[in-house]
């Protein structure tokens, strides 16, 4: 730790020098990206002695190759193949995930957000991405909550308090005038505020922050506490901190995310930025050393008893929660609700005591039952029952086995097997030469569109389901 505190200023100097030298991170990042694309295509193209920014400029459109007939079909197919590969990785991830998540997005709104290396500006790009990020996040984490903190003028400010309503966040994010970037960011202030905002939350839920850091320095307040003590606090409170830097790698950022178990990434370009952000959407796998679950947020009527027992025994990783599934009332007449004592239309009936609640998920005011709408839970079921990846069918297999002529999903006709020429049908990994993908369980064939749709969105195999 002392070593680090000595080291930090040096890092910042260095980084600033770098920036002064080549003054825009844009070109260098493009170079890096080209390098990566090259690696993917065919081995390593650059000698280890050269830095990324010294490499030759690679045009991103060079990797798209036309085939003999001059169409881009094969290029599109390879893109599809890339998607399939990604998914294969997804399917192997562990089953145990923390599904109740609380996330603070700490947004750097310093002057550096006005940089134009992303078009039109970093600010616009980030806001655009954040909007779709929030929607997607709530789609995959229906029981989660998001708050937004912004850092500018060396201060941090809670833009949106922790909440589970994406509409509220979106409406704030669409108001650009309130978000005008200015001054310098203070990472320490931002983190302290996020930590304070999550201090009341139970340790069973996954506490996370996502920092989008655009500048290359942090202006922290003088005083007894430094960013290192804050980091220590984050570690003890198990707040997983992921940082996405737009400008460059900063030692303290990397250190924070590494020690808190988050991810650190430097965005190379817009695509990469999106990839980095989207990587944080699926619920993180919980580690075995997850904290014990005492006094969980479930307002178990016998919470105290459970808690006491929980401490003494071998620390259990999970907990069984009693949840009630309510009845939603239509927007008929107004009735008094149990939570506010106000006359309101609609609402939910607690299944145990029958009192009316305004909104779910919540704890029933009367009997303390945790009332959750079952679709909320059901959103996470596809993690539990994933659809196995479909196998690729070669031409011979289709010839051999008598298969149906139409896709089992959308009933579109498959291309005629006999017309597929052996030479043209390139067997790139993941892409079926016959355009057919077969489910191993129900032995039905699907087209590429349905395959993607079933695995990305539907999460249910039409053949296997009743």
């Amino acid at each position, binding site marked *: 730790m002392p070593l680090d505190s000595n080291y930090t200023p040096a890092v910042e100097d260095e980084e600033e020098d770098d920036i002064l030298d080549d003054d825009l991170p844009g070109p260098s990042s493009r170079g890096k990206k080209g390098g990566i694309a090259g690696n993917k295509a065919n081995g390593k193209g650059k000698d280890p002695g050269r830095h990324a920014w010294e490499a030759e400029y690679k045009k991103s459109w060079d990797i798209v190759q036309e085939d003999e007939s001059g169409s881009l079909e094969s290029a599109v197919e390879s893109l599809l193949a890339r998607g399939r590969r990604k998914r294969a990785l997804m399917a192997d991830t562990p089953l145990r995930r923390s599904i109740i998540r609380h996330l603070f997005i700490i947004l750097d709104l310093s002057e550096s957000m006005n940089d134009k290396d992303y078009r039109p500006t970093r600010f616009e790009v980030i806001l655009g991405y954040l909007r779709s990020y929030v929607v997607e996040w709530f789609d995959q984490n229906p029981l989660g909550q998001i708050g937004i903190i912004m850092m500018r003028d060396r201060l941090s400010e809670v833009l949106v308090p922790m909440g589970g309503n994406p509409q509220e966040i979106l409406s704030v994010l669409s108001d650009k005038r309130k978000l005008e970037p200015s001054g310098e960011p203070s990472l320490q202030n931002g983190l302290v505020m996020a930590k304070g905002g999550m201090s009341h939350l139970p340790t069973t839920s996954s506490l996370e922050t996502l920092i989008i850091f655009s500048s290359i320095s942090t202006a922290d307040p003088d005083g007894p506490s430094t960013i290192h003590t804050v980091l220590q606090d984050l570690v003890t409170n198990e707040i997983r901190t992921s940082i996405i830097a737009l400008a460059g790698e900063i030692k303290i950022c990397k250190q924070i995310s590494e020690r808190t178990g988050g991810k650190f990434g430097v965005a190379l370009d817009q695509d990469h930025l999106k990839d980095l952000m989207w990587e944080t959407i699926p619920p993180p796998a919980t580690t075995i050393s997850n904290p014990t679950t005492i006094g969980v947020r479930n307002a178990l009527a016998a919470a105290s008893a459970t808690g006491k027992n929980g401490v003494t025994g071998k620390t259990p990783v999970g907990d069984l929660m*009693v949840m009630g599934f309510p009845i939603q009332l239509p927007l008929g007449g107004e009735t008094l609700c149990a939570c506010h004592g106000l006359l309101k239309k609609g609402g939910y009936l607690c299944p145990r005591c029958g009192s009316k609640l305004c909104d779910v998920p919540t704890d029933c005011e009367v009997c303390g039952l945790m009332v959750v709408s079952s679709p909320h839970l059901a959103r996470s079921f596809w993690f539990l029952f994933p659809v196995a990846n479909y196998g690729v069918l070669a031409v011979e297999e289709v010839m051999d086995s008598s298969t149906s002529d139409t896709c089992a999903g959308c009933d579109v006709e498959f291309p005629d097997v006999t017309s597929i020429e052996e030479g043209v049908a390139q067997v790139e990994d993941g892409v079926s030469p016959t355009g057919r993908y077969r489910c191993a369980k129900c032995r039905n064939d699907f087209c590429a569109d349905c395959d993607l749709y079933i695995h990305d969105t539907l999460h249910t195999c039409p053949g296997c389901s009743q």
Partner: protein
Amino acid sequence: MVPPPPMESRFYPKTTPPSVLLVILDIHPLSWSLLSSPPPLPPFTEHPGIDKAQATPMSLPDFVTILMVFLNAHLASRWGNEVVIYGASAGRAKLLYPPPPNAVAGPSKPRPNSYHPFQLLDSRIEQGLKEMAAEEQERLENGNVKSLNEPPSMVSALTKALCFVNRIQPSSSTAAALIDPTSQDASGSNSNGPDRPETRILIINATPGSNISNSDQSNGVSGENGDDGDNNSKGQGSKGGQMRGGYVGLMNCVFAAQKAKVPIDVLSLPPPSIDASPPIFLQQAAHLTEGIYWQWNGRGALLQYLHAIYLPPPSLRHHPFAVPPQDAVGFRAVCFCHHKTLDVGFVCSVCLSIFCEPRSVCLMCKTRFPIKSIPTLKTLATYIEPIPVPDTVPPPVIQKGSKMHQINENAKKDKSKAVNGDRSDPIEID
């Protein structure tokens, strides 16, 4: 979740986009045999006019005739409207219309006195239904009698329908985003072009009880549940075992439909005299996708109901037309261990799987729970008594002053109904 009132315009839209109607027709033979000989209806005292209408037996041929008229009306109401029909029978689903491309196209020659698309549609539906019935017959003759006990494969039909929707209007989130990741997809996906067809799914359910799994009769006797559990596990074995395919699959479909902004309308045919408990999961599906759920009262006039409720496309539903008042929705869930429908369940904090009884290890993610808390949880579970869904749709005639009284009465009635419903036997033949 309640559809927001159309704020943007108080004017009628000049034109609406063409709409594609995907119909999922439940043709489970056992359900239709029940429908064709309905028990007499209980007297409907609130409204003497309704009370005069007798219970109408509804056989599948009768209903298909009605459905064809409805579908023809849909085709006729706007140029460019399309119809897709799936049949869902015991454990299987099949596309009935449009015909597969290699099939013989339509009737031999067009009749001069009928609109050709009508003729094509009608003859093809008839043909498709006959084919499917023949297949069922074959299955039975092959000694596969047990298969008839399977519930109609609504989920399979739904997934097929959603795949079809995805093909005619690919969602920007999957394919387009893959090809062009920089596009600001969130804003783009919402904008419906003027010519983009509206799609909607209409599920016509004929099976009493919620057809998601055999054992959906809530809080049934334990022996009965045990039997059902066995049946289900057998079914899974033959299916290659996607556990709880019914409930989880239906929910997945609902979320996919939500994403694609496709409303799922549900018409439930079994009248209250056959089926006291509504198919709550289909009701949930309709509610979550902002579709219309409606249960037939068993007193005829189906064609009129179909036209009045389900004919307007989604963009015209709330304005200038109106949707029938939607009843209270029970957000119950199915447990993973015994497939019971639950009001209160035990949920693993790690993977959120639902169980109907406290256990020491999560079945899904193998998480160990604190053993000592199980007794307290067990005592908690015994306190739970199901609260009946209140009957909240206002009766046709309401005298001022007696409103509250009537609602109370309805609630009581519903309670007794629910009790009866619990005892109703699942369809079973041996």
